């Protein structure tokens, strides 16, 4: 009809094939579930740091399950097995959106908690056990989960209010800034310590140690960049999407950005995929527990 001329030059929506969604969802589900089970079953992983990582993995698990379930529903609806506008489907859609919001806010809060925990470990090392007791950890985790549940329900019920969206975006930016500040501060202090150790007699005299230190400095910078880079690259496109639908819904440039929505969702899901690799799998204790869990033949004596 008469809209065809306008659509001829428009940005077609980019479709991501369902197998990609399913693969990403299922692999991230498996990884995060492994982390959750490992932390819960292994006694020596019951420390604040691992609890926060477990919480992060749990939120990622929820996100993966929800997204995979939603894709399954879409596939079934496309095949005609499901009624699109029936009340159960729309309610289920609401529930899934709430869970997605909850997992999003929860994983950002978990990142913040992990950064604060690392900060306290470094800068208040002697009082760490008094500051970060298991009771306080449980209280913090309870607070995070309750807050996320409440926010999720509110956000989905009142999504039409721009205020909610602005809160969402502000929360993201503030968390990112806080995490950035904490890690860069820790990195800088680590540099100072490294220099001081090197300045002590007996340390840092020969070239090989200089080179080794330079190598590990580069690795530290690379680790931090990966940590942040992954967070920003995976979450920012979706957030810019939210900003754009608030600010310029009718602009053709904005519409071209919005046409890439499914790609941005896949990026968000892939963050749940790479989170364990960045946070959990780098801890030797956790890797050791995985090996025992997966490759141990006699379950009774393994854990």
């Amino acid at each position: 009809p008469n809209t065809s001329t306008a659509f001829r030059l428009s940005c077609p929506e980019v479709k991501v094939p369902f197998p990609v969604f399913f693969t990403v969802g299922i692999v991230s589900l498996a990884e995060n579930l492994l982390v959750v089970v490992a932390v819960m079953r292994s006694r020596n992983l019951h420390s604040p740091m691992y609890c926060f990582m477990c919480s992060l993995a749990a939120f990622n698990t929820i996100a993966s399950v929800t997204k995979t379930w939603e894709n399954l529903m879409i596939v079934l609806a496309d095949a005609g097995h499901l009624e699109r506008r029936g009340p159960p489907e729309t309610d289920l859609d609401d529930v899934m959106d709430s869970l997605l919001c909850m997992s999003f806010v929860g994983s950002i809060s978990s990142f913040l908690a992990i950064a604060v925990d690392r900060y306290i470990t470094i800068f208040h090392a002697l009082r760490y056990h008094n500051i970060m007791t298991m009771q306080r950890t449980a209280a913090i985790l309870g607070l995070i989960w309750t807050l996320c549940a409440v926010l999720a329900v509110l956000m989905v019920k009142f999504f039409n209010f721009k205020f909610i969206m602005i809160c969402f975006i502000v929360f993201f930016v503030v968390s990112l800034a806080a995490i950035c500040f904490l890690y860069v501060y820790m990195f800088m202090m680590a540099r100072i310590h490294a220099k001081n150790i090197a300045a002590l007699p007996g340390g840092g005299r020969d070239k090989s140690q200089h080179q080794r230190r330079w190598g590990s400095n580069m690795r530290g910078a690379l680790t931090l960049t990966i940590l942040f880079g992954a967070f920003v690259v995976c979450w920012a496109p979706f957030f810019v999407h939210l900003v754009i639908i608030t600010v310029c819904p009718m602009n053709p440039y904005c519409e071209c950005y919005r046409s890439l929505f499914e790609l941005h969702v896949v990026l968000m899901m892939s963050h749940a995929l790479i989170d364990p690799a960045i946070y959990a799998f780098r801890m030797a204790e956790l890797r050791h527990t995985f090996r025992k869990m997966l490759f141990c033949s006699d379950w009774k004596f393994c854990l």
Partner: protein
Amino acid sequence: MSDFHNRSQVSARRSDYVWQYEYYEDEEPVSFEGLKAHRYSIVIGFWVGLAVFVIFMFFVLTLLTKTGAPHQENPDSGEKRHRPEGCLVDINGHQDDNDKAFSRPLLEGSRSYFNFYISEEDQAHEKQKPEDKMSSAKDKAERLQRSAEIDEMDEDVEESGGQHQPLSGLIEKSKSDRDRECAFLSHFSIPNFVNLDPGSTLGEDDLLYEPSVILERQSQAHNGHCDTH
């Protein structure tokens, strides 16, 4: 196309952010004529900006690694390390000994940090009762092991994983409380107090590796002292 619009209506009703073509059914369609720049310019600009940000951050971090105070050699620090009471300095919290041990000119760069560190340790020791000495030593050992795990953010697992062994092996082998404290503290004498600060989350294996060189040199000296007790 109709399937697509149906789907967009169902989900857009509940969550407007899922598919946006819903808007264009109710209002006039967006006109794509007369665009001055490329239609994907926002997308391209966003990703270029993101890439620049990440690369900029990486360069800032590597630049931070290159700046710093030049290395100085302090000749009298070596004598301080071999004090006979070196084992018990930290636990008993002798204020003046710690001050002498920690305040050296080469540490000016982060002097305020280390003084803060000393005051923390004194506070920590004020709360300690003498009978809690052993548990506190064990706590510290656990914390060091845990923090050493934080250091394993890095790829060099073998190197930093190996650091667990000297510490735990050292502690397990000692028999009496005092021997255990001495063995534990041989890792925490003056250059090694930086180990109490668990290094970094960034797996700077130099923080574990370089002190270990100093550790091995000193552990012999301290073990010698401890054995005579």
